[in-house]
């Protein structure tokens, strides 16, 4: 059985967290293979992080320069690092994202397009957005080598984790120059008609 689809041979290997140079070099549509540390969070994590900010409190983790991956993993079987761990849909985080970008968050990763306000905030703060492969949770599980609970344990699958990933594939959607890969694909298919 084939376990390594061909396109993994063409990915640009990059380390996490991104250096400013790497961040600036990423281009919309580029395929990347991520290795290093990232943080996770989805609906409840975002709600709680912003509630802490509202109260003027410190966040449980410094997000400056980090990548935040929108995922709610399934539970790990005994002896495993994690269960399935593919991306969740990003637009649900849109209303919270500009505040986190203002704190220096360098990258977010999920699936689906971001709203105009988030795109503008990314441009203003120098952040990128990546898409992971939706619905490939078992495959992506294999790229996660360590998973540590950081905060909000009571939120269950919505808790904030720190992951160590190795060769985690993703597609750059929004780059620092304001390009949006989904929009580029849509424009190209309109021109093709």
């Amino acid at each position, binding site marked *: 059985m084939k376990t390594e689809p061909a396109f993994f041979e063409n990915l640009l290997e990059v380390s996490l967290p991104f250096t400013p140079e790497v961040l600036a070099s990423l281009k919309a549509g580029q395929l990347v293979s991520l290795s290093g540390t990232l943080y996770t969070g989805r609906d409840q994590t975002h709600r709680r992080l912003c509630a802490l900010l509202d109260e003027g409190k410190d966040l449980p983790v410094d997000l400056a320069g980090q990548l935040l991956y929108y995922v709610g993993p399934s*539970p790990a079987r005994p002896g495993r690092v994690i269960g399935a761990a593919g991306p969740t*849909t990003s637009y649900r985080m849109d209303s919270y994202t500009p505040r986190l970008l203002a704190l220096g968050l360098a990258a977010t990763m999920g699936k689906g397009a971001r709203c105009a306000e988030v795109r503008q905030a990314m441009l203003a703060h120098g952040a990128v957005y990546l898409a992971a492969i939706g619905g490939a949770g078992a495959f992506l599980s294999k790229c996660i080598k360590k998973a540590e609970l950081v905060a909000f344990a009571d939120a269950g*699958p919505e808790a904030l984790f720190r992951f160590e990933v190795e060769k985690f594939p993703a597609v750059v959607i929004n780059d620092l120059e304001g390009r949006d890969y989904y929009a580029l*694909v849509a424009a190209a298919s309109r021109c093709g008609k």
Partner: protein
Amino acid sequence: MREIDSSVIRQVVRDLAIAAAHDLEPDILEALLVARDRETGELAGNILEVLVTNANIASRDRIPVCQDTGTGILFLEIGQEVHIRGDLQEALQEGVRLGYEEGYLRKSVCDPLTRKNTGTNTPAVVHMELVPGDRITIRFLPKGCGSENMSSLVMLPPAAGTEGVVGHVIDRVLAAGSNPCPPMIVGVGLGGSFEKAALLAKKALLRPVGEKNRREDVAVLEERLLREINAQGQGVHGFGGITTALAVHMEVFPCHIASLPVGINIQCHAHRHKEIVL
């Protein structure tokens, strides 16, 4: 009268929940393989290859196909000549609870206001029908919400006609973009009433992927919708190509002379469904 103990149903539902999360059925696997082989977009083709690999890993290593193991949706057809001993509702919910706990599946059900997780993935949504005979058919459709959130219901005026229906379905699919994890299966429920159209749209997803409606004019409409959706070029995960949808399934039911209800239930490529006849 045939007797079935509710404990049997509890066990069957548990097993269906675990199997559904890990083992895609041949219909969806075949649809993904066909799409992979036909795909002209390079990135789209590569991603379809990853999805096929993902299904293999899930089944082999017992990792859910997708971390969103869904809200449990149960469809039961209960033969009128069956007597169920014990509490059926409790057996169904307990089966789901056991399946999600013992199968290491994600518990994704919460209170709609407080957002507090129920911790058990229950309650599942249960639809039951009485049918002739002495059998019970149980279908389990764990529904992820990336796709469920892109679903909709509209009450069109009858003057909208077939063109109105086609335009509306295509608009909704395009608006969904890459959010529902395309290539998707589009369930359309046409007619009935407000709630009937939604239920028909969901039931349409239970049909084997790509199987046509038996009514010829409906089958023609399904084909047209599929062709027009795929001609838009959004493609796999919004990365272009020819496979935005794997299938369009439409179910129809007569409706009021003043009404044209259209339910659209979108399903992701991780189309998990299991069925058993007791």
